[in-house]
């Protein structure tokens, strides 16, 4: 099977390890991964901030970049939600990309039909579901099922898991006080779970939470790790 990786702009520039992990994981599962280099940003931040006209060219670019692929896979719930839920407003061609786009855990569970991806990660982990994954994509227990099958991993409950972490794209900049208060509460809840790793499937949330952890001085007792990196980790090639 051949899929196109939509790595997303945040992962490309700031979290390449997540992209690399996604490639390694998919290849390990027998999938051929392409990276269409014409991709950049899906336009979510522009769209959500109220700049629809400025979003349109990015939508067109993204649609063109993934033309002809039956499956587009992305390790970012919020970008998947942008393609799936909002691209329809940008014309019939764009509307047609959404249904072909899969957030990583959806692709693994629904398309490949696996929950045990042969990963090994001996840590105590708690999972932040992220609003877009939870409410817009309805990922449900897919991430949980994947994490539960990881050898050595102890999954613990995150109190208030369904609450927003306070990132919200430009919200973090426009309403810094409220955003920071939300982030701090999320990190406190993660600390209360006694996990060493706060796992998520969206690096935007994890960037915000990691930045908060750093400021709170709780790193590395608690650290943010993307789900793809945990799933890519094996006994032969462990993630440190």
């Amino acid at each position, binding site marked *: 099977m051949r899929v196109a990786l939509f790595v997303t702009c945040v992962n490309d520039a700031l979290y390449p390890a997540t992209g690399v992990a996604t490639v390694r994981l998919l290849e390990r599962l027998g999938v051929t991964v392409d990276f269409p280099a014409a991709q950049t940003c899906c336009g979510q931040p522009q769209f959500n901030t109220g700049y629809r006209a400025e979003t349109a060219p990015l939508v067109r670019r993204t649609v063109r970049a993934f033309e002809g692929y039956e499956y587009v896979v992305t390790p970012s719930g919020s970008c998947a939600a942008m393609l799936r839920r909002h691209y329809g407003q940008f014309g019939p061609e764009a509307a047609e990309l959404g249904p072909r786009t899969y957030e990583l855990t959806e692709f693994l569970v629904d398309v490949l039909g696996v929950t045990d991806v042969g990963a090994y990660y001996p840590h105590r982990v708690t999972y932040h579901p992220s609003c877009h994954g939870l409410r817009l994509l309805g990922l449900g227990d897919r991430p949980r099922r994947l994490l539960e099958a990881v050898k050595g991993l102890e999954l613990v409950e995150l109190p208030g898991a369904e609450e927003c972490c306070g990132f919200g794209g430009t919200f*973090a900049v426009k309403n810094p006080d409220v955003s920071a208060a939300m982030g701090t509460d999320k990190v406190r809840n993660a600390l209360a779970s006694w996990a060493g790793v706060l796992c998520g499937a969206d690096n935007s949330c994890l960037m915000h939470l990691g930045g908060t952890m750093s400021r709170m001085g709780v790193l590395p007792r608690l650290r943010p790790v993307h789900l793809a990196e945990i799933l890519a980790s094996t006994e032969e090639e462990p993630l440190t």
Partner: protein
Amino acid sequence: MSGTFLGMPGFASGARRRGAAENGNTGADPGFPAFPEAAHTSVHDERLRGNLRHATHTIRDKRARAVAELADWAELREAGRRIKDRTLRHLDRYLLQLEEAVTAAGGTVHWAADAAEANRIVTDLIRETGETEVVKIKSMATQEIGLNEALEAEGIRAYETDLAELIVQLGDDRPSHILVPAIHRNRGEIRDIFRDRMGDWGRAAPEGLTDTPADLAEAARLHLREKFLRAKVAVSGANFMVAETGTLVVVESEGNGRMCLTLPETLISVVGIEKVVPTWRDLEVFLQTLPRSSTAERMNPYTSMWTGTTDGDGPSRFHLVLLDAGRTDTLADATGRQALRCIRCSACLNVCPVYERAGGHAYGSVYPGPIGAILTPQLRGTESEIDASLPYASSLCGACYEVCPVAIDIPEVLVHLRERVAARGGPGHRLERAAIKAAGWVLDRPGVLAAGERLAHRTRALHPGNVPGAGAWTDSRDLPEMPAESFRDWWRKNRT
């Protein structure tokens, strides 16, 4: 009547709106700071946040349980959405039907295009009775138009009879929640307010008042009873108006509203035009969804319904003031109009992480929380700083949409209103648009983007931990470390 005109019959909306703004009654207080500044103070008020957190979390958990009891919740929600949408599409027709029914039942209908007009109508009606005191049922519409203040200016005193409204009124405070206006106060604060202020407004609090709920309730009961028995005029709002019968409906928990609705001689109800439902049968849906969403009760303790006047039973004079105040304009907006479906249950406030931290006052309007963030800028326009900042007072997490019993897609309307604010420009937004345009230029050129990334990655050792200009972000969070190379470059080296 034009195709987009869906509101109050007989009014051209725009001209009336401007009239209202000139009278200073519906617009925002020009001195009120934008949401981020207003929230700055409340976020750091530990006591306020504690009160809010406790109250909202308690009620949200109870709501979830009450909703889970109904197997057909999804159907009820969809039915509520449809009834409201259908009514809004033919609002002019239903309002005329309502007017006819109310008049036939012995009531009088008045049409108010804006706050100033509504206040004038109510003032004149009270003057005609010769009274200078009225009792009031908790009502969002009268708060929205600033009725109490308008009456005060004309020498008429309005007494709030809802317990939480009483606390707010005695404390010279502003409400901070739709359902629980004094949610930001704890028991100790309430005792102090009762002890210090009740005497100024009527019967003083009993000696040695404690902060136990029973004691506080008894003090309020004694204080209010005097007012119920003396009042000749009552002012109310309504949760619903039934077009086919001209019936008004108030649901409440305390029974104070029922005292106001039955004891006085004159009853004046001020109700937003969007509160109409076509038939009695439609109440079947809302009388299930409203109490479960708001107080997490299966049924609200008191449901009062009144239709015109009846000899020897209840008020002998009944006036209905139908309020537009921006609703017709809201109706003309195909995306924003869904905000008018709101039944004011406040479920969205109780699950909102932003409301929980910022508190209701930061929204600068009687409608706080997620619904306030979309309703207020539509009713008042986006000219003032606070109104222009409200559509951004959300992380778009979607929790509000999930709980809303009439399925208002609040995030969708927020983004829609952001477009409106951004399109209007203003200093901040001009810069922002320029930045977005510049970023868009780069993002449309992967080659330029890759070069930029490479430069950033190569110079990463030089980046200070806190990037100047990232200001608001790095005040409270650290930026991530720049990796050695982009994914794009890794791919080029390893997979091509």
